[in-house]
């Protein structure tokens, strides 16, 4: 709860900084504040409190996910600093919108009432609509913003209709009470309940960009400013998955036989479509968008699992995906600064001119593709073995095939970095930027080499 309040307060502080003129120190204040929030969050981890009569609960699930999100937000602040230092953007407004979006993510990971699910999604989405269109004079940014807005509002509408039907069938919005009603009459639930589940599933599938509801994702990711795309692809996606998992694994788990097969079909199409379309991209930014769609398919697999392990698998996979993608976007950010374009060709010669950036990119690509020394391999391994134990053989075969395809486009980046001539233009990274990049790179390798540490740490909290 303190995490939620403090994050919202930091957003208000960012708005006040414009009035009271301490804009220059805002970045430092926010980074220190987020570090403080992270520590507060750690101290709250072991408890499970209900707040506002059963509206939100801060259990270890919420604690772990909000910790992860705050950590990623801290990394994001370091990556995006130089972007906002140049006068192109209105710094304080952007930072306050980012902080309010973070507030939304924390509501999303901790809701126990369907109203909080809806409010969390909207608190997260509305700032993102604005941020996606923050390059006011660029038509592609405008278009991204409008597409995101229409799709977001449309998906919220479908989600809300589902919630209304669930309310009609059960007479309550509390997810634990709905779960109780579902498990008491799992054989004879009314048709309203089923329709409600499927509409909620469609609404959330829009938010996590699962096929066939993915078509907005590449356009929005490409049109938005790069740092905002990085935020959307990592933090927003993590929160959306946390909400999806909490809703379906706590509330609708007794009825898994009814919705499980639909979700399996969605997963298969998501993995195949995402991976195959990523092969044809010429822009790395767009390739990362399609890779995000494909990875969403893997993360959706955890929702099918009813075992206790699925929670660890989800936490491990989202943190591995988010860290690696954030890393990739950081390097892409610098490459765009050097070359002014985000095609695969603009990466050529990076291995010679900027060895550090190239090594970090290699680590993150290996992790996304699931190659052993990086954490991505272990996350995939843990997830696939858990799915296999539940008997979803076909799903695992498709997932492994998808990973094989993904190696092609991830390695295309690596190959173009270490071939071709290096150019004379270069960029000076500050010591802090270098340190942050090296730190995440080390973290990705370290978690991959000693995954037991991470799993034990999560388990010890429960």
């Amino acid at each position, binding site marked *: 709860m303190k995490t939620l309040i403090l994050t919202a307060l930091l957003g208000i502080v960012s708005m006040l900084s414009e009035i009271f003129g301490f804009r220059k120190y805002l970045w430092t204040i926010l980074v220190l504040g987020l570090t403080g929030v992270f520590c507060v969050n750690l101290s709250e981890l072991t408890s499970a409190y209900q707040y506002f009569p059963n509206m939100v609960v801060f259990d270890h699930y919420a604690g772990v996910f909000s910790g992860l999100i705050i950590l990623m937000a801290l990394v994001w602040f370091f990556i995006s600093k130089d972007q906002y230092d140049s006068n192109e953007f209105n710094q304080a407004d952007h930072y306050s919108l980012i902080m309010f979006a973070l507030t939304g993510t924390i509501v999303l990971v901790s809701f126990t009432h369907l109203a909080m699910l809806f409010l969390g999604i909207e608190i997260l989405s509305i700032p993102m609509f604005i941020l996606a269109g923050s390059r006011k004079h660029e038509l592609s940014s*405008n278009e991204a913003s409008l597409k995101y807005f229409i799709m977001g509002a449309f998906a919220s509408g479908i989600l809300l209709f589902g919630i209304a039907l669930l309310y009609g069938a059960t007479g309550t919005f509390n997810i634990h009470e709905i779960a109780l009603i579902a498990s008491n009459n799992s054989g004879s639930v009314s048709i309203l309940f089923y329709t409600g589940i499927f509409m909620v599933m469609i609404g959330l599938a829009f938010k996590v960009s699962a096929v066939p509801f993915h078509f907005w994702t590449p356009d929005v990711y490409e049109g938005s400013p790069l740092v905002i795309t990085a935020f959307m692809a990592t933090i927003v996606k993590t929160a959306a998955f946390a909400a999806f998992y909490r809703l379906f694994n706590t509330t609708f788990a007794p009825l898994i036989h009814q919705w499980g097969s639909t979700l399996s079909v969605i997963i298969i199409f998501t993995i195949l479509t995402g991976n195959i379309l990523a092969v044809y991209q010429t822009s790395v930014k767009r390739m990362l968008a399609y890779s995000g769609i494909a990875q969403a398919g893997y993360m959706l697999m955890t929702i099918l699992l009813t075992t206790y392990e699925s929670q660890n698998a989800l936490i491990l996979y989202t943190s591995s995906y988010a860290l690696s993608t954030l890393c990739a976007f950081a390097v892409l950010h610098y490459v765009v600064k050097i070359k002014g374009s985000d095609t695969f060709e603009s990466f050529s010669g990076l291995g010679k001119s900027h060895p550090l950036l190239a090594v970090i990119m290699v680590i993150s690509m290996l992790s996304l593709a699931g190659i052993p020394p990086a954490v991505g391999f272990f996350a995939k391994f843990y997830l696939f073995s858990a799915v296999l134990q539940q008997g979803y053989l076909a799903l695992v075969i498709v997932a492994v095939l998808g990973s094989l395809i993904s190696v092609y486009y991830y390695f295309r980046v690596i190959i173009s970095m270490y071939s071709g001539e290096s150019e004379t233009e270069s960029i000076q990274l500050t010591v802090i930027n270098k340190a942050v990049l090296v730190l995440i790179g080390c973290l990705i390798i370290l978690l991959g080499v000693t995954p037991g540490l991470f799993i034990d740490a999560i388990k010890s909290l429960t």
Partner: protein
Amino acid sequence: MQVLSNTVNNYLVLASILFAIGVMGVLVRRNIIIIFMSIELMLNAINLLLVAFSVFHNDASGQVFVFFIMAVAAAEVTVGLAILVMIYRNTGSVDINSLNKLKW
């Protein structure tokens, strides 16, 4: 369906029809303002449904939810209209076909 009384059934049918009109409007119409109106129609269909169920269950929380939806819908459409103004300044049109920069 058998659990619901006839009156609630009528509301359910009406709300579903309104919602379907809204969905069709978003999918078919090309004018951005009409699309916004269709989204509002979807949300109002949901509000109607929630109120009907709230009376049926004799439970106030459905009506409280409606207030949340109204407030959020107002905030959302404010942002949407701001985006629309931004687009109109750049393209001089509110037709969704004028936006075709991003394609796969």
